[in-house]
């Protein structure tokens, strides 16, 4: 009886463990993406997995995200709210999509996108920030690289409480004329209103080798020196020496092969022991 119980328990545990393989084996190296929305009814934030909020899908209370979210994950914030959100992780990507008056705090952000129509304040050092169209944002910490983008004209409002390593205002979403291109902006001096740079010249340099109040100056975006004019290109923030470039991993998941192989090995082992 006892044997049977143990057997059942072990079987259940192995099945759960083996099934748990499915997801990690597929996306083990990938970061997760969460989309956050403030629920006025609940009076709290809720989240879903994925980059788009789907009303048909079930959402979860924000309290649950703290045990799941990890450094390197990506977050999208949507919806109208004046609530703040704080997550104690370093994000690889933060996108504020049309959300208004959001105050978002993180340990740090590699790439931050403030899309058109958004009004936000972001705390935590930012590697690369991109502010689109008429978005308004205040960065409360340092920004290594800041790109302000618009169509025919620039209309964003941006202020930075920390330093800015390199800031560029460019039309046609990165492929048009450059309105301003400044380096090493002193702390709490970067100010853009309706797309126009209002920072006094004394507080920034027009060339890369100028005064450097920035604590995290950007490095060259491309080893071959190609100009990357796209909206999401730009510079990388202080890469560690063993970190690979961020390119989609297109290998096939070997979960099935590994599972079947492991199953066969275990089976053979078990039979061998019994024979002995």
């Amino acid at each position: 009886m006892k044997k049977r119980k143990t057997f059942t328990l072990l079987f259940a545990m192995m099945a759960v463990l083996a099934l748990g393989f499915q997801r990690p084996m597929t996306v083990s190296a990938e970061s997760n993406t969460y989309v956050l929305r403030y629920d006025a009814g609940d009076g709290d934030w809720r989240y879903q997995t994925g980059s788009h909020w789907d009303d048909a899908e079930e959402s979860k209370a924000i309290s649950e995200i703290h045990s799941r979210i990890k450094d390197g994950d990506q977050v999208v914030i949507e919806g109208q709210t004046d609530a703040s959100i704080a997550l104690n992780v370093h994000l690889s990507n933060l996108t504020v999509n049309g959300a208004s008056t959001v105050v978002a705090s993180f340990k740090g952000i590699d790439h931050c996108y403030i899309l058109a129509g958004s009004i936000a304040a972001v705390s935590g050092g930012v590697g690369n920030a991109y502010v689109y169209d008429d978005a308004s944002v205040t960065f409360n910490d340092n920004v290594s690289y800041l790109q302000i983008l618009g169509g025919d004209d620039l209309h964003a409002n941006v202020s930075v409480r920390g330093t800015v390593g390199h800031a560029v205002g460019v039309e046609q979403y990165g492929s048009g004329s450059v309105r301003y291109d400044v380096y090493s902006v002193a702390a709490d001096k970067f100010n853009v209103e309706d797309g126009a740079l209002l920072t006094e010249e004394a507080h920034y340099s027009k060339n890369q080798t100028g005064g450097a109040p920035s604590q995290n100056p950007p490095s060259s975006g491309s080893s071959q020196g190609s100009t990357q004019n796209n909206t999401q290109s730009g510079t990388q923030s202080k890469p560690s020496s063993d970190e690979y470039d961020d390119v989609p991993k297109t290998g096939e998941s070997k979960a099935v092969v590994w599972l079947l192989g492991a199953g066969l090995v275990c089976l053979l082992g078990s039979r061998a022991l019994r024979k002995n």
Partner: protein
Amino acid sequence: MDKIKKKISVILAVAAAGCLAAGGFLAVKNYREARETERVLEALRASALAVEDSQESAVGEPSGSESSGEKPEPSEAEPGEGTSLTEEKPTESELPVSEPKPSLQPNPYRESFLANEDMAGWLVIPDTVIDYPVMWTPRDEKYYLYRDFEGKENQNGSLILDTDSSLDPITTNLIIHGHNMRSGAMFGNLTDYESRDFYEEHRQISLYTEECRRNYEVIAVFRSQVYRKTDEVFKFYKFFQADTQEEFDDFYQNIKELSLYDTGVTAQFGDRFLTLSTCVYHVEQGRFVVVAKETEPGEAYLPVAEEPRAQ
């Protein structure tokens, strides 16, 4: 001792059962997902084929099957659209490389574009299984990495256009990533280009966008890898836009040097490229890369939101 052996034997048997059950479950799940995705894609391909067939019958003669790999014949411009019928038909070398032809035709992939606005185009390498939609999600590059055309989880994923590439305005290089599946799906057979014979028979690539059909000819085939951020080497996946001759030459010379064989195809500053990339395992983070140069433009299409005027 026997008791311990017995216990270990039982544990191993349970582990075997668990692993085999999970492996079998996953295999069946993957198979069913792949079949369902293929069914959806097949319907979209059939829809595209129907539009192309109706265009051919409207013209009264075949215009060259896109799926057969034949070079498309330049179509005659319509009156009132900038080109007179009395004008001499330009030779291929006289045609502007990047400008779509003035004659607007219904987009064969109209249904697909309408079905999912994340679709940037449809990639076809004639006479291969590569006949798939290409998804572009600037907000989350990897969204379709493990999702099918309908956004459902799928281990094959979809072909994805690198978010640093852009069709409007078009960048010098469009990079498309796809999974290297053992089943041959997606870019599972891209490594066939290692054979020069395969290349000779599959030189042409077409990308159907919302605006027009873009034609490409393979210019280089090579193995490379994703490098560390601090590595100062040629990184094919970092090249998107060449604004100067120097930037263009750097990419062009590197891909020609890396190419497994000389295709004889050359390029000059102003030309545009399509780069297909998939994982291979000759080194850690290995990539197999096929670069194609844009050649003569194909048909220009009516806006997909509009009804096709010629049926």
